[in-house]
């Protein structure tokens, strides 16, 4: 007979935080084992456990919010704070790599020839594929905003179309970037230029893939009528994340591709 006299969500006991923690342990130790003893077992186990954890944990959140009604306005506010804080932490993550890039490029050492780009490095032309990539991501920012407005206005078909287009643009970016990586005249092992370039753009590419996946999940949910015109926070979180990925690219493009060439 007792029921809660507040609007907050007291989550039922769940095994996923534990499996997530075990996955983190297996991934970290597994990567170390892989690097020193040439065995992929632990790391693969960690990866599988991580994927299972993510799938089941987020599936449970969707069940709690969309089907069981636990995501009241205060709960949604907490989720908003959470996503904002997470994205902020990611901003700091990338800030580190930009710091590394500027540390090495603003005062290039004699080993590099005292110049940036270092002697012997042929940089990519910023006005070729990188510029196209910039256009692709900016366009995807427009389409994701279109999708948001479609959802808010109850336009189901347009929401599906614009969200699909956004995801396709994301895939196109990833494809183009993969081609660039393959064709680049320098590698990650080519001094500090290679290190800063591939670590910064590499982590960005990973975030594009993560963002595209998040949007794809939203597309599936939209098709299955999860979102209402008033309540679609999952989509908003994905859109915020996508804009963040776009902004990081703009900084990468200006700093590494353009100024650094």
């Amino acid at each position, binding site marked *: 007979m007792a029921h809660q006299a507040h609007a907050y969500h007291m989550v039922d006991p769940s095994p996923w935080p534990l499996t997530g923690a075990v996955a983190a342990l297996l991934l970290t130790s597994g990567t170390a084992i892989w690097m020193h003893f040439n065995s992929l077992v632990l790391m693969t186990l960690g990866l599988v456990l991580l994927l299972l954890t993510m799938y089941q944990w987020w599936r449970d959140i969707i069940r709690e919010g969309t089907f069981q009604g636990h995501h009241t306005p205060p709960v949604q506010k907490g989720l908003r704070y959470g996503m904002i804080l997470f994205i902020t932490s990611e901003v700091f993550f990338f800030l580190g790599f930009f710091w590394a890039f500027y540390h090495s490029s603003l005062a290039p*050492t*004699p080993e590099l020839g005292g110049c940036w780009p270092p002697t012997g490095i042929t940089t990519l032309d910023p006005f070729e594929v990188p510029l196209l990539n910039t256009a692709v991501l900016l366009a995807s920012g427009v389409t994701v905003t279109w999708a948001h407005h479609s959802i808010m206005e109850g336009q189901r078909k347009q929401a599906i179309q614009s969200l699909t287009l956004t995801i396709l643009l994301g895939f196109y970016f990833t494809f183009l970037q993969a081609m660039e990586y393959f064709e680049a005249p320098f590698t990650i092992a080519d001094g500090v230029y290679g290190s800063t370039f591939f670590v910064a753009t590499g982590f960005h590419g990973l975030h594009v893939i993560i963002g595209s996946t998040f949007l794809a999940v939203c597309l599936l949910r939209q098709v299955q009528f999860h979102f209402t015109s008033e309540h679609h926070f999952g989509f908003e979180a994905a859109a915020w994340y996508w804009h963040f990925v776009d902004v990081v690219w703009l900084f990468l493009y200006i700093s590494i591709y353009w100024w650094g060439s």
Partner: protein
Amino acid sequence: MSYEEKLKNYRTAPFDARFPNTNQTRNCYQNYLDYHRCNKALSAKNQDPAPCQWYHRVYKSLCPISWVQKWDGQLEAGTFPGKI
């Protein structure tokens, strides 16, 4: 002061306001570069490269010997990364 006088009065590298800080790496490297650039430029015009000795004195005073040996080796092998 003519460059001969300057060279005669040389005791050690004077203060160079371009490099005011404790880390004098760039001071050493720049003078090493300037010596070789000076030599290259004056020889190209068939002039006496004697004024270049100033840069030579400065980098000899400032640079660690191992650096100079490494860079000289690179110059010989054609792998010196700096622009001469």
